[in-house]
């Protein structure tokens, strides 16, 4: 069968464009929004890759495109060695069981007319993992592991709190017994205690079932806890990727540095004494991205070259990649 050392997911130069702006701007001819701009990544079997970055930088779009819920404008995704755009509908549907997503917005991803129990049972029924008569105990078991009581099975999404709905979404993703889960802000609506339970659960399932996660989150403390490697995204591109400990202890990209310095710490004294690097200036727009390195208008370390030349993602140390001119060989200031 498949080589266990081969990556489970291979993302190759992925690009995603959207149309936006309304008719007014269509005439001006600027309606193409590039949400994902040439992303290449690999996910090894059983690994958790954290994905972080500014709001609107393209994380959810990337996550959805990896599952082909959005068709890429360019580039390719291979799952377990097979290119997704070569598959027909039936093959894709079969593969879908193995790749699940916990959506960022749990409410709009649940059918309001279906009880949450039915919603969780649905993937089991579709993929023949349970029958019409015997899904209940299986759903109850899933509810139990995400911390929802069995009495909640017959209730409807609107009767739930935000965090309870998010746990329904997690139960639904687990129901299909997948190999790979995109967790898009999957624990962000949860209070810390339940968040800790769910994170422990995800880690336990990963070891037990050799699951692979793409873990999108803006909470860096959570990402640091759960990930093996972490990728940092800025305006549609990966700007840094490294093993977790390297990234948090030795961030190279100025954007990563700013990001790490902004994390709130739940301790009044530690919090008051911290230095933060605030990036000045406007958040760039994917409709008209800055020239060269997209960070250069806000970057405290920008050089002349940054305005003109887009830095490529290059290795800088073992398993550590960064897209920044500070680290290119021909830059005199590099070390």
């Amino acid at each position, binding site marked *: 069968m498949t080589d266990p050392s081969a990556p489970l997911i291979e993302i190759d130069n992925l690009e995603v464009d959207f149309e936006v702006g309304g008719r007014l701007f269509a005439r001006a001819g600027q309606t193409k929004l590039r949400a994902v701009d040439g992303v290449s990544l690999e996910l090894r079997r059983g690994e958790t890759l954290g994905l972080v970055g500014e709001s609107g930088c393209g994380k959810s779009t990337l996550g959805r495109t990896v599952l082909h819920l959005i068709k890429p404008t360019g580039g390719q995704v291979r799952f377990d060695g097979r290119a997704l755009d070569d598959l027909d509908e039936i093959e894709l549907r079969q593969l879908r069981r193995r790749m699940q997503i916990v959506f*960022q917005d749990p409410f709009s991803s649940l059918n309001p007319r279906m009880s949450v129990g039915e919603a969780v049972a649905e993937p089991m029924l579709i993929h023949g993992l349970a029958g019409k008569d015997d899904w209940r105990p299986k759903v109850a078991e899933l509810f139990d592991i995400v911390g929802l009581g069995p009495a909640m099975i017959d209730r409807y999404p609107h009767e739930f709190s935000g965090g309870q709905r998010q746990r329904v979404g997690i139960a639904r993703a687990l129901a299909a017994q997948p190999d790979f889960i995109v967790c898009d802000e999957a624990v962000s*609506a949860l209070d810390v205690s339940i968040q800790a339970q769910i994170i422990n659960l995800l880690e336990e399932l990963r070891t037990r079932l050799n699951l692979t996660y793409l873990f999108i989150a803006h909470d860096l403390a959570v990402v640091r806890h759960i990930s093996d490697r972490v990728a940092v995204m800025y305006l549609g591109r990966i700007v840094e990727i490294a093993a977790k400990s390297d990234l948090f202890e030795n961030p190279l990209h100025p954007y990563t540095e700013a990001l790490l310095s902004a*994390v709130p710490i739940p301790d009044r004294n530690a919090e008051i004494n911290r230095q933060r690097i605030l990036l000045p200036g406007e958040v760039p727009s994917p409709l008209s991205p800055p020239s060269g390195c997209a960070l250069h208008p806000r970057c405290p370390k920008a050089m002349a070259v940054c305005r003109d030349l887009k830095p490529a993602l290059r290795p800088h140390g073992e398993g550590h990649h960064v897209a920044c001119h500070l680290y290119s060989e021909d830059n005199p200031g590099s070390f």
Partner: protein
Amino acid sequence: MTAAAQAPPLLQVRDLAVEFGGDGGVVKAVNGVSFDLHRGEIVALVGESGCGKSVTALALLRLVADPPGRITAGSIHFDGEDLLQIPLPLLRDIRGDRIAMIFQEAMNSLNPVHRIGRQIAEPLSLHRAMPMRDALAKAVDLLRSVRIPEALRRSRDYPHQFSGGMQQRAMIAMGMGCEPDIIIADEPTTALDVTIQAQLLELLQQQVVEKQTSILLITHNLGIVARYADRVNVMYAGRIVEQAKAEDIYDRPRHPYTLGLLQSVPRIDQAIGDKLTPIEGQPPDPINPPPGCPFRPRCRFAVTRCDEDIPPLRRLTDSQSIACWVDVDD
């Protein structure tokens, strides 16, 4: 702060109770909640998922869906009037104008068929009698202030064209539009990365400082509470179990639940441990809560008394109260 604390509170919530009736029984989602909000302060409401934070927030503006929801008891005094008693048309004038609400699930509270800019402009033209043209221009300014790039152009997008965090920022822009006296912000920054989160919270804080706005901040992020809140209410199973100044909560949590909450947070300034330490067990079934203290089954400090009597909120110091028969500090 101290001056504000001596003046009568701007919002005074007393013994608020909300129930949901259903086939399975009655859910007591909010069960006798009392707290104050003074002019120019940020008060946090924290607690476990499902403990009743959003329902409390909705009840303040009588926005709980009825049926199945019912506000069964309590009073909410705002500027001399009880919001639970005043006629609905008067309340509608207050909503979005003097008290604004930033809802937890932005996508769900934005209208999918209207452009973002228009939705932000609407309350301005309604409450401020601003001509639509001006209101739309102001909406673009507001989008810019919440850091939406190319705000003019993006104001013509529909909600589904915004990312999760952009939708949330649009909600914040809408909430700030009329410069309300009170902003109720229900998890306003959960979908935001830390840098924009910091910028937006600073924007909200600026309103507090410059305009003496008051904010009820619902969040599960204890880092945010540490940085921005003046006072904190910790809620558990529909009740407030600890009330304190923000600094006291971190230095000296006194309720066992608060202590557990602080211990379950992953922290970026600590070593990477093997496992997080959540509070073991589950919150009580809201339909058939056990007798006695609702935290009893998960509490490692419990004494026999906890099985029988629900502890009332009691004062430990001038600024700290707990609903607990023991005090973890002893």
